[in-house]
């Protein structure tokens, strides 16, 4: 397999490691005694300043990858096998104390449910201040000033007032913006956004995405955007990875993956997307259901629902390159 780097534009200055580099990454969860594989042999890169979208249905493993990067769950609950590096440093080698310096600092995360992701008993400003207390040496005054700056960056008209308010006094969209402000407090290298707009109204979604985009451009921030909303992916992503049943089915530039699609699953997904019609054809769901981790085998996990499947699909499928920077795990890729 060849490492994936940005497919468009001139190659970046040599030897700068990608912000995120995953090689043969597998994840296991523990349910009592049982060790269940939920992500199989995934490899991808995220370059500096890149907006990388990880797309898939629920059950595909995308949220677990995010949690693995942050090591949000202890090893006994979420086991990481394979290589997972942040700017050249292997995340699995780091001690918990070192991980803590990364969390909220160089890597930060925003979550899907702004309603429950903020502590209801603490004012917004204080919650932002907490992450600054961990990662910076600024005094209280300096911190408060920065908090107001951050809140105004996410387009709050009266940042001082918002800082004093409690989460229940804000709407969903406002809470999500506050979370973004909090996530950017320590100038992270990578922002992981786990379905940040799923729980929001369509109009608010735009606003939040625009804020993320603008801040990303300003701070040269990499974004790992996890979603199942293909229209947002189409609008904002530089590169896309398509995950199905724990396997990275396709990975490449947005124009290639979304525009042209090498993998039958990606094509099928696009057919289902509310705003996307292929040749004016009507929306279709994909017949069948996603196999559970207990049913997985070595062959292509999509073969039961794929219209192009044949006998070759029952064996292990290697990754094949369609073009530099664009690959698919399929023995019968679409042309």
């Amino acid at each position, binding site marked *: 397999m060849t490492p994936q780097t940005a497919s468009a534009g001139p190659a970046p200055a040599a030897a700068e490691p990608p912000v995120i580099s995953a090689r043969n990454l597998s994840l296991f969860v523990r349910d009592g005694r049982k060790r269940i594989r939920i992500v199989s042999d995934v490899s991808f890169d995220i370059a500096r300043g890149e907006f990388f979208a990880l797309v898939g249905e629920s059950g595909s493993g995308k949220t677990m990858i995010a949690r693995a990067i*942050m090591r949000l769950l202890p090893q006994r609950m979420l086991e990481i096998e394979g290589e997972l590096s942040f700017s050249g440093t292997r995340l699995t080698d780091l001690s918990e104390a070192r991980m803590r310096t990364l969390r*909220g600092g160089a890597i930060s995360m925003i979550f899907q449910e702004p309603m429950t*992701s903020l502590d209801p*008993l603490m004012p917004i400003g204080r919650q932002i201040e907490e992450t600054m207390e961990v990662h910076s040496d600024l005094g209280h005054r300096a911190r408060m000033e920065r908090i107001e700056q951050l809140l105004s960056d996410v387009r709050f008209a009266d940042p001082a007032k918002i800082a004093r308010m409690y989460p229940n006094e804000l709407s969903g969209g406002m809470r999500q913006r506050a979370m973004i402000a909090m996530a950017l407090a320590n100038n992270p290298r990578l922002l992981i956004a786990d379905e940040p707009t799923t729980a929001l109204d369509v109009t608010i979604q735009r606003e939040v995405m625009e804020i993320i985009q603008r801040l990303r451009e300003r701070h040269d921030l990499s974004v790992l955007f996890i979603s199942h909303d293909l229209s947002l992916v189409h609008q904002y992503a530089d590169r896309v990875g398509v995950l199905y049943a724990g396997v990275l089915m396709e990975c490449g530039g947005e124009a290639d993956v979304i525009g042209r699609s090498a993998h039958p699953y990606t094509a099928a997904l696009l057919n289902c997307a509310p705003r996307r019609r292929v040749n004016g054809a009507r929306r279709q769901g994909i017949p069948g259901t996603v196999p559970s981790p207990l049913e997985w085998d070595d062959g292509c996990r999509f073969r039961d629902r794929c219209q192009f499947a044949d006998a070759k699909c029952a064996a292990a499928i290697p990754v094949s390159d369609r073009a530099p920077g664009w690959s698919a795990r399929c023995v019968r890729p679409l042309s």
Partner: protein
Amino acid sequence: MLHLITTRLLGAIPVLLLVTLAIFGLLRLAPGDAADLLLPEDATEEQMADMREAWGLDRPIWVQYGQFLTNLARFDLGESYRYRAPVFDLIGERLPATLELSFYALLLAVVVAIPLGVLAALNKGKTIDAAVSVVAVSGVSAPSFWVGILLVLFFSGYLHLFPSSGQLPYGVTVPDITGFVTLDALLSASWDALFQAFRYLALPALTLALAMIGIISRITRASVIDAGQEEHVFTAVAKGMSRRSIVRRHLLPNAAIPVVTIIGLELGALISGSIIVEVVFSWPGIGTLLFQAISVRDMPLTTGIVATYTLLFIVLNLLIDIFYVFIDPRLRGSKA
């Protein structure tokens, strides 16, 4: 916020009225009245009629209720049949002892139960968790009068470490500043009296605390576990906070709210439990007074004490309700 407080206060009024009606109803519906109880068996009809008139028992029922209410408002609870003294005064004399016992019992219960509950939650599934569970379920299942007697048997009868009844030893007195013996002893620097006062408090307070310890520790454990599974804890981890900070700043405050609820609910058990514990330990509070009043069928005194306990309960619950408004922002807010 003021609006919320006034709403709660106003909401308590119909309840108070209905409660007074219930108490009045009990009093009037009960067979036998002052005339029956106070006059000898061979009293004449005329004597009974006179007695009834003196006590106002011959007026129409709603007039009597009105009189009852106005008396209540003026803190006039009538006169005890037995002691021939105003009920209000009799209760006033002994109420501080009850409050003092209840206070120390609650304090003991909270100080023991909350750390136990947190300990059990943070060590979920391990031996210490099971041990706390055993203590909790036993505390809740053991009748307080039995526990009290066992404690007396062991610590008093066997070890002679603690006394089995009363509030202070014979001959030891404390100046009556507030009415609360421990406080008065402290204020007047009577260290020996203070020490004795605690010695006498030990067994009754422990007995009363035991059942509460059971419930409070269980709820604390459950609520700490629940709080740990909330989404915002993940957010805190994602911010790079240490486990200790997260527990201290995000977990425990959120877990505290159900615990405050349960303490509020336990106040009722505290009040009714104190009656029994006072009787077991001959504690000079309104519980023993109630017991004595009932045994001589002293209606006014019984009613007065029942009303006092109920009023206490209602007021305490109201205070806890109002307290909530201060600690939980979600009860105040509206969207910006």
